[in-house]
């Protein structure tokens, strides 16, 4: 083909030419002979070429479009994947959040419940304690008030008693003084009386003597008067004495009352002392109460858990002794329960063992029952065989009888005339008799067999029924129960073994956890830049490996493995990522450039007073900061300068300035500076 297509000829070419090549040859031949045909051929060729060109262009367009579409598809696919990834992330996040939220809610609920319960119990405890405290404080206040009242009463009494005693003392002193003075007076008077008595006696003696000697009336009257006076005086004295005695009596009474008050006072003092002691004791007891209350609070804290578990009535517990008593009671009860529990477990174990033994015995019994049933079946089989043998023997008997009859006939024929009729008849009778007997016996045997059979049938039917109803189900269930019990016991043993294993494992786990507690975990985010990079590299490597394997193992030369396409696709994606990154970088650089250029323009504007605006057609618009409405337009290509500042109302001598600074001196900056100054002057003037 290649030879033909290239136009080369080979003398050894055996294959015929292809139609196209043949046509070409044919079309080539008349091209030199017939002009019309040549023109048509050329036209056709042109048409073909144009069509081929069109086809090529369409194919190219198609390819381009296909590539574009593929690119779009890739980008869309990428976007789709990224969105799916994002969606997955978001879903995972929401799921995780939802889970955490639900778990947190649950925790919160449980905590809230616990908190509510705790708070309720605390509140009740607190209320109880508060109530108790209030009662105690009330009691304390009452006692305080009572004590204070008593103390005040006692104090007032004491003061009164003191005052009274002081008064009494003063009175006593006065009375003592009076008594002493009066006793002195009495003494004096007594002495006077004694003197007077002595005088009287003297006078009596002297009177007697004088009476005898000088009995004058005057003296007697004077003496009588004196006596009367003396009597009066003594009467007065006696009255005064009686009065004093009364007063003395009163004073003695007062003294006695004073002593009584004194004693009372002492007693009250003692009582006050005892009250003081009691007050001290009361304060100590209050302190003790506070301490005990704090201890009680601690007891309450300890007992709150116990309270929930045990049915202890907190109202019954007044002091720790009650708690200890309860605790002791509970301990005793617990010990008793433990004993009972151990006994019960022992008995249950014994019961289990007995149950197992019973199950085994039951199994043995069932086996025996089965054997018995089997024996019965065997016996029945034997019976049946015997019946069959009996029937066979009957048949044999019949045959023998037949043979006997035949033999008798034959004997009769042989004997002929020789035999006698009498003997034959006897023989016949005997045979008949025998026959009848045997028939009777056979009938009887048949009947008996029939009856036995019927009985057996009935029995078997009843047995069958019972078996179907009772024995089969019972045996089945008992067997099943036994099996299940045995299985249960084995499972219980297994469970016990497993439990011990579990406890061992838990202990080990705990130990391991304790060991591990000190350890540290090093963590990283799953989708970090490093891991992403590593993931891409791994994927690339895997794809390349797959491609390599496929290429090495491919059989047909025309086949291109799928892995090649996948690798190319992956590379394309990588390139797209690179492009994306570079685009991003370019955008950022552009942003920075724009920012910097804006800064530059701002700086120029602020320093030179002109704002520069770069146009796309290589033109620069220059706005002065003093006249932003007007501008200068510089064309950098044509090298021209146009402005709308050259008006009369703005810069009147524009042309002159332009001539001086640009044309003559060639100094654009100076020209711009002049314009700036002019514009500033105008704006200043306007202001």
């Amino acid at each position: 083909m290649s030879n033909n297509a290239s136009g080369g000829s080979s003398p050894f070419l055996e294959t015929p030419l292809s139609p196209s090549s043949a046509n070409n040859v044919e079309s080539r031949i008349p091209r030199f002979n017939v002009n019309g045909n040549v023109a048509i051929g050329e036209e056709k060729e042109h048409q073909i070429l144009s069509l081929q060109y069109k086809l090529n262009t369409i194919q190219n367009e198609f390819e381009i479009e296909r590539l574009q579409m593929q690119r779009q598809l890739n980008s869309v696919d990428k976007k789709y994947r990224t969105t799916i990834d994002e969606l997955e992330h978001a879903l995972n996040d929401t799921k995780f959040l939802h889970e955490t939220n639900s778990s947190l809610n649950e925790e919160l609920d449980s905590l809230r419940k616990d908190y509510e319960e705790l708070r309720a119990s605390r509140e009740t405890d607190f209320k109880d304690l508060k109530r108790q405290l209030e009662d105690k404080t009330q009691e304390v206040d009452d006692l305080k008030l009572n004590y204070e009242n008593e103390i005040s009463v006692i104090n007032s009494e004491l003061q009164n008693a003191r005052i009274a005693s002081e008064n009494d003392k003063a009175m006593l002193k006065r009375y003592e003084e009076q008594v002493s003075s009066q006793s002195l007076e009495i003494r004096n008077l007594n002495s006077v009386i004694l003197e007077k008595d002595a005088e009287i006696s003297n006078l009596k003696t002297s009177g007697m003597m004088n009476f005898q000697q000088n009995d004058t009336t005057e003296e007697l009257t004077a003496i009588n008067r004196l006596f009367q006076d003396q009597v009066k005086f003594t009467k007065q004295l006696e009255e005064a004495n009686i009065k004093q005695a009364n007063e003395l009596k009163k004073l003695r009474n007062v003294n006695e009352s004073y002593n009584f008050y004194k004693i009372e006072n002492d007693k009250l003092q003692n009582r006050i002392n005892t009250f003081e002691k009691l007050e001290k004791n009361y304060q100590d007891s209050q302190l003790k109460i506070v301490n005990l209350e704090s201890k009680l609070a601690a007891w309450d804290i300890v007992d709150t858990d116990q309270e929930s578990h045990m049915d202890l009535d907190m109202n019954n517990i007044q002091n720790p002794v009650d708690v200890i008593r309860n605790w002791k009671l509970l301990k005793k009860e617990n010990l008793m329960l433990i004993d009972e529990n151990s006994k019960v477990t022992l008995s249950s174990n014994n019961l289990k063992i007995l149950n197992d033994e019973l199950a085994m015995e039951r199994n043995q019994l069932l086996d025996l029952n089965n054997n018995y049933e089997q024996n019965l079946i065997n016996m029945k089989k034997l019976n049946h065989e015997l019946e069959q043998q009996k029937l066979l023997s009957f048949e044999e008997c019949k045959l023998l009888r037949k043979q006997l009859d035949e033999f008798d006939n034959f004997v009769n024929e042989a004997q002929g005339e020789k035999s006698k009729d009498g003997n034959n008849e006897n023989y016949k009778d005997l045979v008949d008799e025998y026959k009848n007997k045997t028939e009777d016996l056979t009938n009887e045997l048949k009947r008996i067999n029939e009856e036995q059979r019927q009985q057996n049938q009935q029995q078997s039917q009843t047995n069958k029924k019972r078996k179907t109803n009772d024995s089969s189900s019972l045996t089945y269930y008992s067997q099943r129960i036994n099996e299940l019990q045995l299985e249960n016991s084995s499972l219980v043993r297994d469970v016990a073994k497993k439990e011990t294993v579990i406890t061992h494992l838990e202990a080990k786990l705990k130990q391991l956890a304790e060991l591990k507690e000190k350890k540290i975990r090093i963590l990283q985010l799953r989708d970090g830049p490093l891991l992403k990079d590593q993931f891409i590299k791994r994927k690339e490597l895997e794809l390349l490996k797959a491609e390599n394997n496929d290429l090495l193992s491919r059989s047909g030369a025309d086949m291109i493995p799928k892995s090649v396409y996948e690798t190319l696709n992956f590379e394309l994606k990588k390139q797209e990522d690179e492009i994306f990154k570079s685009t991003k970088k370019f955008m950022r650089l552009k942003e920075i450039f724009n920012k910097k250029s804006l800064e530059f323009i701002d700086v120029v504007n602020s320093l030179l007073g002109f704002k520069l605006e770069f146009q796309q057609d290589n033109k620069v618009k220059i706005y002065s900061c003093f006249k932003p409405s007007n501008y200068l337009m510089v064309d950098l290509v044509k090298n021209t300068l146009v402005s709308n500042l050259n008006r009369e109302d703005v810069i009147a001598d524009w042309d002159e300035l332009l001539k001086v600074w640009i044309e003559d001196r060639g100094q654009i900056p100076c020209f711009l500076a002049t314009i700036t100054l002019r514009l500033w002057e105008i704006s200043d003037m306007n202001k």
Partner: protein
Amino acid sequence: MSQPISLRGSTRTITEFFEYSINSILYQRGVYPPEDFNTVKKYGLTLLKTHDDELKQYIRRILLQVHKWLLGGKCNKLVLCIVDKDEGDVVERWSFDVTHLSPSEKEGDIDEEVTQNQIRGLIRQITASVTFLPELTKEGSYTFNVLAYTDAYAKVPLEWADSASKEIEGGEVVQLKSFSTNDRRVTAQVSYKF
């Protein structure tokens, strides 16, 4: 007179420091191009902070979790590894140790201004470390990874996975400055291949 930092506030200070230090390291070491960073004023310094959304999101996710761990006292180290993409080797390892101070270890109330000054000094040292660290010659072929050292029983979200410590064997270690808050002390060090 500024108030001393509370536990929550101190954690926030540490997390914020991590954010700025990670950004500074990534900028100073050229792991990400300079155009990805903006200048911001912080700690009385002009620092650089990324405005690349992907990177920002990544750092934010790390620091959110680290903040939670720090609050719970479960995180005691944060490590930033700069890794050669081609070789997979760790070329630099910036480690920030967080010590949770016990009541006996606390040295009284530390003023926030003192903490800020210490942080400023540490960030300056990180910036200055470019002078002694070997140049990362292969531009654009480095990436980074952040490792968080946590308690073995810390609650770990699904997006976090276990990692190796990524130590640089036989590397040079330079101890940097440290700063303290009321409850924690943060010490920094950098190890690198030489």
